[in-house]
């Protein structure tokens, strides 16, 4: 069961159109909600007049800030469902309509009159920090939201020990999740006034709490039912205003209300990856040992705080702990502006930090005239060591990952009798053109792989039931977002109980049923929920063995679970699981087979002043090698091949692991070359897939994935997380390959033809 390429259990329903997504939910009497957004990036709201809109036939109710409960919600407690006094961004919600159909609701929006008094707006952190700049949240007293200051060792010593140092400035853009399913929510109240929310959230239990604040209700009055989720990638890690707005509409109308975002609205109002400007310095000795790394990041978190403001924790980890870094400093400032809200996007700060850290590694290697892979291997993290930041690294396949991708690069080279990439002939179908230059580049990555303690609990609960028919139900707190957790968890349970994967039903979508879990983030589900499911399955097996031992007249330690039976090793006698379950409860004082599991990893919240501490129970590592072709006439970069090696501890389902890496790579390629949400004066300028370019089948390079297994001591069957690593090193590997090809260092993504051409022209002028 473990290590097998088992197709996802939910795939047949998805392939046939049977799966119910949020947009497919239709409740009796359900109304359609639409939101009216602000016209200004910063303004005082003088008047909101809904009287004309209310008269439109089919309009059932309208909510404005007057309907807000008196509480504030959100990570920084700076948000309300609707905005009444001040709007702080163009995605600010001023009113919402519920009507019999979406067209009527849309028409009603145009009949709502809002009078504004524009205020001075700020659209960059630099402007927001200027003397006399308007305060985005006056009650906060400053436009700084958080400031991170981390260091280990002493930078001066690092500088002294260095034979070479490099320094550069980076600029990183807004990026969208671009999940294929747009945001959607359905809110319904029952006769008790309790709310059921059909949601695509990644944090059902935290959302209960957050909604209770946003709605002024008790958490116990809120039930979250998660529909099938058409992609999430971090979008669902926080409460966003449309969720309480749907509830306010539903309560006021006395009918269920669905709010489905259009794609335009998704680009406008869903959270985005926060842009950052980063200054980095790094040094090394002549022998190729890193001496120090120093980075400062200025982040634009937008008009309200969400998880975008915590990404520096991850950037810090890459800066201070990817490779052995004797001296390091990391500082970051998160600043309010009148721009869109920023949130968590797959990789959570790591695509950004890996881009600057890993391109700086190549700059050092070039300065040292050293092979970039050799240089990395020399400095690689090793198993069983603690980094100065306090990360306790147990299993670690960084060196193996680097060697694996390098070996594949070498094969590519050897094919052409030892010529370097640059000299390789073009595929026969192309006539070699002197303007096309080829190069290869490498980059590595470090990511949490055993949860990430950012809340006091990083736990997950699970129960495993065996019924009268020998059928197994796993109820897990965790959430399926397409990544395949249902299947992987079913494999773990099936392995322990000796049944087929198809005999395990996974239930994971209802807060009234499932035990608590912190949410699906930080590549944590296989490790944390996997351990919880493992514990619960072992508990169920213990109960099975207890009863089966009586039935088979032996002791529990003589028993194994195999092929749907409990089998006695010595006598060879066996009993079918359903029979054991029946025997356990069809008796006086009987019991059901119900195993329980709770797993919270042995990790710590980082120290709030020093930011040190072991945030994850284990760490994942990876490396990528990109082969590119740069057209020096046009600046166009084509990726020919991408090799991805990842230390995943153990691949419980190699096909699912590959899927995570390949899908991550698609995002990484987009981050590197095409994806940028262009925001001008707070306005999203490219809110559709024509202008926000995702890689398509035709754009994708050949991708090879290599799975490195290091058998993690604490992972379920040795596994650790992999969900985010597929895309974190891609942009750096491509930037390094561009340098190899044409000798320019790219410091911003996406590396569009325009930007590459500009860099080439600047180089010519030097």
């Amino acid at each position, binding site marked *: 069961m473990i290590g097998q*390429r088992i*197709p*996802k259990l*939910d*795939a*047949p*329903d*998805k*392939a*046939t*159109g*049977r*799966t*119910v*997504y949020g*947009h*497919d939910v239709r409740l009796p009497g359900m109304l359609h909600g639409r939101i009216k957004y602000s016209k200004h990036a910063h303004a005082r709201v003088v008047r909101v007049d809904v009287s004309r809109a209310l008269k439109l036939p089919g309009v059932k109710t309208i909510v404005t800030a007057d309907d807000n409960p008196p509480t504030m919600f959100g990570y920084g407690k700076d948000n309300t469902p609707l905005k009444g006094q001040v709007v702080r961004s163009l995605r600010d919600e001023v009113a919402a309509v519920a009507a019999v159909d979406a067209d009527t609701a849309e028409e009603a929006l145009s009949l709502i009159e809002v009078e504004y008094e524009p205020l001075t707006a700020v659209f960059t952190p630099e402007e927001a920090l200027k003397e006399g700049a308007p305060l985005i949240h006056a009650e906060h007293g400053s436009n700084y939201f958080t400031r991170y200051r981390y260091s280990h060792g002493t930078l001066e010593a690092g500088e002294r020990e260095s034979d070479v140092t490099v320094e550069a400035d980076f600029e990183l853009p807004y990026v969208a*999740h*671009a*999940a*294929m*399913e*747009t945001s959607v929510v359905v809110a319904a109240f029952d006769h008790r006034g309790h709310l059921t929310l059909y949601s695509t959230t990644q944090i059902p239990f935290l959302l209960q709490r957050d909604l209770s604040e946003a709605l002024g209700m008790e958490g116990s009055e809120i039930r979250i039912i998660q529909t*099938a*989720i*058409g*992609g*999430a*990638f971090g979008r669902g890690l926080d409460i966003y205003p449309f969720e309480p707005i749907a509830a306010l509409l539903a309560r006021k109308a006395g009918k269920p209300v669905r709010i489905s975002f*259009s*794609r335009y609205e998704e680009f406008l109002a869903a959270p985005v990856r926060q842009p950052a400007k980063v200054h980095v310095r790094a040094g090394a000795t002549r022998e190729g040992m890193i001496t120090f790394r120093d980075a400062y990041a200025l982040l634009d978190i937008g008009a309200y705080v969400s998880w975008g403001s915590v990404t520096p924790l991850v950037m810090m980890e890459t800066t201070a702990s990817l490779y052995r870094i004797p001296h390091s400093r990391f500082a970051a400032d998160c600043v309010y502006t009148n721009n869109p809200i920023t949130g968590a996007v797959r990789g959570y700060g790591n695509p950004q930090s890996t881009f600057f850290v890993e391109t700086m590694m190549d700059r050092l290697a070039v300065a040292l005239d050293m092979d970039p892979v050799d240089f990395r291997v020399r400095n690689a993290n090793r198993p069983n060591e603690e980094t100065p930041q306090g990360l306790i690294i147990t299993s670690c396949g960084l060196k193996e990952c680097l060697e694996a991708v390098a070996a594949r690069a070498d094969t590519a080279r050897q094919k052409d009798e030892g010529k370097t990439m640059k000299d390789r002939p073009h595929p026969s179908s192309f006539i070699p053109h002197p303007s096309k230059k080829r190069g290869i580049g490498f980059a590595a990555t470090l990511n949490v792989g055993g949860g990430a303690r950012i809340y006091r609990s990083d736990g997950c609960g699970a129960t495993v039931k065996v019924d009268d028919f020998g059928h197994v139900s796993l109820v897990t707190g965790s959430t399926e*977002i*397409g*990544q*395949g957790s249902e299947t992987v968890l079913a494999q773990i349970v099936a392995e322990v109980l000796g049944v087929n994967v198809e005999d395990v039903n996974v239930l994971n979508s209802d807060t009234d049923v499932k035990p608590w879990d912190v949410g699906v983030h930080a590549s944590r589900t296989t490790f944390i929920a996997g351990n919880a499911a493992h514990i619960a399955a072992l508990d169920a097996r213990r109960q099975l063995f207890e009863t089966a031992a009586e039935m088979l007249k032996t002791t529990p330690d003589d028993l194994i679970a195999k092929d749907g039976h409990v089998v006695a090793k010595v006598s060879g006698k066996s009993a079918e699981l359903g029979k054991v379950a029946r025997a356990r409860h069809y008796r006086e004082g009987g019991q059901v087979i119900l195993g329980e599991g709770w797993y919270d990893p042995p990790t710590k919240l980082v120290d709030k002043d020093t930011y040190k501490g072991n945030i994850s129970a284990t760490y994942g590592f990876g490396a990528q090698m990109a082969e590119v072709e740069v057209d020096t006439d046009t600046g166009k970069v084509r990726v020919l091949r991408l090799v991805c090696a990842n230390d995943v501890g153990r691949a419980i389902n190699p*096909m*699912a692991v*590959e*899927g995570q*890496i*390949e*899908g*991550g*790579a*698609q*995002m990484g390629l987009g981050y590197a070359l095409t994806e940028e949400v262009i925001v001008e004066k707070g306005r999203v300028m490219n809110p*559709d*897939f*024509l202008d926000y370019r*995702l890689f*398509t*089948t*035709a*754009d*994708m390079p050949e*991708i090879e994935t290599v799975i490195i297994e290091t058998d993690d001591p604490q992972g379920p069957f040795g596994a650790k997380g992999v969900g985010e690593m*597929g895309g974190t090193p891609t942009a750096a590997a491509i930037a390094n390959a561009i340098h190899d090809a044409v000798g320019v260092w790219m410091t911003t993504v996406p590396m569009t033809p325009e930007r590459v051409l500009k860099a080439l022209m600047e180089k010519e002028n030097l």
Partner: protein
Amino acid sequence: MPKFHLSLTVNGEARELLIDPRRTLLDVLRDELDLRGAHRGCDSGDCGACTVLLDGKPITSCMILAADCDGSTVTTVEGITPAGGLHPVQKALVEKGGIQCGFCTPGMVMAAIGLLNENPNPTEHDVREGLAGNLCRCTGYKKIVEAVLSVEESKA
């Protein structure tokens, strides 16, 4: 607004409907005919999640007015799914791991069927070009392309 009388053959069944003439084919499939396998990812022809076959050819159903399909034959993912089983393209996608969140999948299935109808022996390049209008944010497409190519192989 006067209603439009629409005659369609959907998944082999003749349907007569009175519709708002502004409705797209996707609206009618999802909201009037309760066929929700076609998904709305963008409503502007850019993502392919709404792909169905119109007279045998794959189209993005969000981009065509239902009224313009009058008298046509429409096949959706529900229509190609055999009772209690899977179409070879569906089976290949399931087995090769070409499905994660699944939101793009029905559109991908219909685009692939349209492609194979037209070109039963596609090269990898043909598949990559043929599916380039269908976005997927989860899989990186590798397993999707492999799946479609394997259908061709198993038929040969």
